[in-house]
């Protein structure tokens, strides 16, 4: 079943065609890697497909309903419930501890303090940072912040997670273990993932790959 469809999605910034008629489909539960060199339009694609940015033309469909022409409020609700978004630079709330950061989306959704904290702790544990629960982002390493941000993006059990370069580059065993944890969490929860990366090894963790160049989806790279 198709969960997300982008049809001829186009976005121009001044004279730059950041995205030119991009067609993308994500099936329910599928992990799709979006690869391409820097500046090829990967982040713009994520912003358009997740409803954060409105494309100039084209259509975005999520779970059978048009997404891109809905109002900002409706899109924001969707991003707190069925869609998780992890942007390129983490964005944890600096004043909150790791466990509070992860619990936040649940509290905004009306969960009780106790149950939110319990779920948050489980997700921190899943990503190997249970020991950092009481620390604030400023006290965490970059890799630990990424793990906390991933836990926060998944805690609401979204049907689709957008993740922009979630592990940076996979030079380390640590990055590899974060990715393995992300993939197994997504598979266990039937969460589809649109995984943005410039790194081929990261993309190899996905079920499928689409490749962008100059804002276009390159045909042929679909395996």
């Amino acid at each position: 079943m198709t969960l997300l469809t982008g049809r001829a999605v186009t976005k121009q910034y001044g004279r730059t065609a950041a995205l030119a008629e991009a067609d993308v489909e994500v099936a329910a539960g599928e992990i799709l890697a979006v690869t391409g060199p820097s500046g090829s339009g990967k982040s713009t694609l994520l912003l358009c497909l997740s409803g954060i940015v409105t494309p100039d033309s084209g259509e975005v469909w999520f779970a059978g309903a048009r997404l891109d022409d809905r109002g900002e409020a409706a899109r924001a609700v969707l991003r707190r419930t069925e869609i998780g978004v992890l942007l390129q630079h983490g964005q944890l709330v600096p004043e909150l501890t790791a466990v509070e950061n992860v619990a936040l989306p649940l509290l905004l959704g009306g969960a009780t303090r106790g149950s939110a904290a319990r779920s948050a702790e489980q997700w921190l544990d899943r990503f190997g940072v249970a020991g950092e629960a009481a620390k604030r982002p400023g006290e965490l390493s970059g890799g630990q912040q990424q793990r906390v941000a991933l836990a926060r993006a998944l805690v609401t059990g979204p049907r689709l997670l957008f993740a922009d370069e979630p592990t940076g580059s996979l030079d380390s065993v640590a990055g590899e273990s974060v990715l393995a944890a992300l993939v197994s969490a997504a598979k266990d929860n039937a969460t589809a993932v649109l995984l943005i990366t410039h790194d081929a090894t990261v993309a190899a963790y996905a079920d499928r790959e689409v490749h962008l160049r100059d804002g276009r989806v390159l045909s042929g790279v679909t395996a």
Partner: protein
Amino acid sequence: MSTRHLLLGLLARGPQHGYELKRAHDDALPSAKPLAFGQVYATIGRLERDGLIEPAGSDRVAGPERVSYQLTHSGRTTLAEWLDAVETPAPHLGGALLEKVVVALLAADRDTATRYLVQQRAAHMARMRELIQVRQTATSVSEAAAADYTITHLDADLRWMQQTAARVDALEKEIRP
């Protein structure tokens, strides 16, 4: 580098004799070692024996007679099949990937070179997925480390393919000015 396919690629542009082939080879691949005459003639001999090239004529300007060669039908087919095939993803492919891009540009065009890079990327990615499975189910550190060794090398190839795909136009201009 396989001199065999490079010479076939050069002959796809029209008949040439040994000396011209050596010059064209050295021009097309300035980063490779210049081809020795002995190697050119030995390769020509083998290609002719295998029916992939045939004499196209000879001239004698001054000095010895020079025979020029052309591709046979079988030579064209062999070249096209080789250009369509991906290399088996493994560490130490060395110059094989560059060689195929260069021959694709010599014998065909940038679309052929790009198509090859796209197919090779898909083959590498498929192998990467297998290796990641191996690593994740590895029962010993040495097994995981062995998988990592190949993953790291394939990753370097993939990065090179991406850079080269982005420069295929410039490379074509350099090879076929």
